[in-house]
């Protein structure tokens, strides 16, 4: 095993799959010579050539639409959005075309769209969003949100292998900050299976992406106060591991749902509703949500810090639940 950053693990997963499967190709803005805005595909064009690592015009509709066509013709396209935020420009191609093609026309569309997402470095309103809930709401799409380097690689390979359109949300704030052991060989991590990031008995935190680390810090603080926190990293929000969430809810009887996306209609609402519907009798406290507020992501550091859930917000929420 090698120690890789989250970003290196994504590259490694993509490279592994491109070496194994000639049908896989990459298309996106500046992914070729430049290696992508975040350098995920650095060196790929040298290795795989200009027709498997394609610099696209600034045209997200064309990028995602072309992936759909190429996938129907038997290739396995991986599109890179320069930032997740720009997926709005390709909404139609994902939601109108790719998502519905299997159900209504019987044609599978095996595409992967990589979405560098999330805030924490003053990206401002258009380079910081976490749009997973919008797409998790669309029948036919899958949404993957890895938190660890090991999962980043295994989930990317699963996404490429999957016969459906998969949105792969890679959190920019984890790219170079998070390192971990990553197996060198090819492996997959199944879509729809949560990971217990930390075992605990008193309160469950259900979260994903960068918030796993915020939850972890908060859990460590609470440990010194004698509160044992369990952290469930969903890893994929569509499909999501309902069984794992309900099991943890039943074990601790207290649930905190934590996400970096905004509150109303965020995916946490779905989780909270499901826990309320299916584990009500097992709960000792109301389900609590900690999320960003319902605003665009602000630019200036104090504003952005107030926007993104911080460790202190989570410790406060956990204490409240523990004392309930």
């Amino acid at each position, binding site marked *: 095993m090698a120690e890789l950053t989250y970003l290196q693990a994504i590259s490694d997963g993509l490279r592994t799959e491109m070496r194994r499967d000639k049908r896989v190709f990459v298309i996106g803005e500046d992914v070729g010579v430049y290696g992508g805005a975040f350098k995920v595909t650095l060196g790929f064009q040298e290795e795989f050539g200009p027709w498997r690592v394609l610099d696209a015009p600034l045209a997200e509709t064309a990028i995602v*639409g072309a992936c759909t066509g190429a996938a*129907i013709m038997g290739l396995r396209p991986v599109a890179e959005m320069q930032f997740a935020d720009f997926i709005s420009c390709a909404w139609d*191609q994902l939601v*109108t075309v790719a998502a519905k093609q299997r159900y209504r026309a019987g*044609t599978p569309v095996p595409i992967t769209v990589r979405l560098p997402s999330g805030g924490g470095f003053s990206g401002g309103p258009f380079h910081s969003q976490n749009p997973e809930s919008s797409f998790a709401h669309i029948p036919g799409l899958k949404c993957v949100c890895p938190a660890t380097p090991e999962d980043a690689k295994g989930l990317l390979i699963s996404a490429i292998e999957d016969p459906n359109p998969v949105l792969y949300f890679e959190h920019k704030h984890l790219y170079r900050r998070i390192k971990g052991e990553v197996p060198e060989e090819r492996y997959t991590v199944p879509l729809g299976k949560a990971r217990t990031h930390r075992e605990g008995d008193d309160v469950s935190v259900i979260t994903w992406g960068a918030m796993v680390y915020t939850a972890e810090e908060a859990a460590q603080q609470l440990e010194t106060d004698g509160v044992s926190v369990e952290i469930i990293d969903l890893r994929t929000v569509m499909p999501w591991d309902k069984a794992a969430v309900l099991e943890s809810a039943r074990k601790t009887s207290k649930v905190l749902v934590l996400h970096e996306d905004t509150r109303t209609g965020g995916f946490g609402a779905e989780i909270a509703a499901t826990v309320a519907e299916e584990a009500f009798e097992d709960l000792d406290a109301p389900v609590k949500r900690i999320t960003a507020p319902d605003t665009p992501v602000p630019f200036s550091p104090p504003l952005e810090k107030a926007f993104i859930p911080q460790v202190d917000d989570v410790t406060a929420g956990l204490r409240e639940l523990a004392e309930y």
Partner: protein
Amino acid sequence: MAIAREAEPVGSLKEVREAGLDREDLLGVYRNMLMSRGIEERGHILYRQGKIPGSFYTGRGNEGAAVGVATAMGTDDVGTPLHRDMGVHIVRGVEPWRIFAQFMGRVDGPTKGRDGNVHMADSKLGLIAMVSHLPAMLPVAVGCALAFRIREEKRVAVGWFGEGASARGDTHEAMTLAGVRKLPMVFVCDNNQWAYSTPTHLEFATDHVADRAEAYGFEGIVVDGTDVLAVYREAKRAIEKARAGGGPTLIECVTLRMEGHAVHDDAFYVPKELFEKWAEADPIERFRTWLRTNADMSDEEEDEIAGEVKKTLNDALKRAEESPLPDPSTLTEGVYATPEDLDTPHHK
């Protein structure tokens, strides 16, 4: 100022032979045009009988454009035909009874009742089912062409769009990508002069939609869409050029939408004189006359073709009506594909 080349009409049988069609082929083209119109006429009746849920669209006036282009496509080429392009499905070999089943929301329609109208395609015949959003299939068609280029296959993708939908950004993005990568792609604009009730001068400010092609780095051609042979000749040239690595072409087929936007629309906004003028250029009647004059189509041949079409349609209707409606218990099946779904020729 017009930039696109305006295609000449087709003259003699000799010229048509040079373009690759023998006499048998020509009679086949005629038959496919009749079949295309026949399906839509029967569909209209079914609609009035209350047997078609939702709305119903026809491509009357566009039979020559649709059949002409599709006839020029090779077996391994692919396309994304739209709601005026019934003729494409017919040429590619979709069985009429399955189309009627589709109209009526039956399980034997290509979408098994999950989508209506001509929102359907048989992928085994190289077609991809359109979505409502226009012209969202153009970038998809370009992706097919991209796949052919990546794999260095000698195949071509054909993408259709209306002159109204030419206003949307998808058209621009699709043509940009196809242009910069010189993909084996043919864009076909069904310019039927109306986008629902909106006339062309409110959709684009150039003389022709095809004038734009030059801006994307490829050739634009305007052709009389009621002249099936001229459409065929231009499509054939463009497709073979694309196949040979010459990049995309934009062909604009000019017709008039001879009915309302859909069955609910009486097209009161289209000047009566315009309908009268274009009725004289009915593509089927035009081609019938041409065949009689230039290819000696006899009364017997004409009757035989018309008879075969009629019988096929009668049988098709009967068979489609026997097809069951979908079982509501299947509602949630197949939202997501399984690995076995990829076990198609394309995905090997």
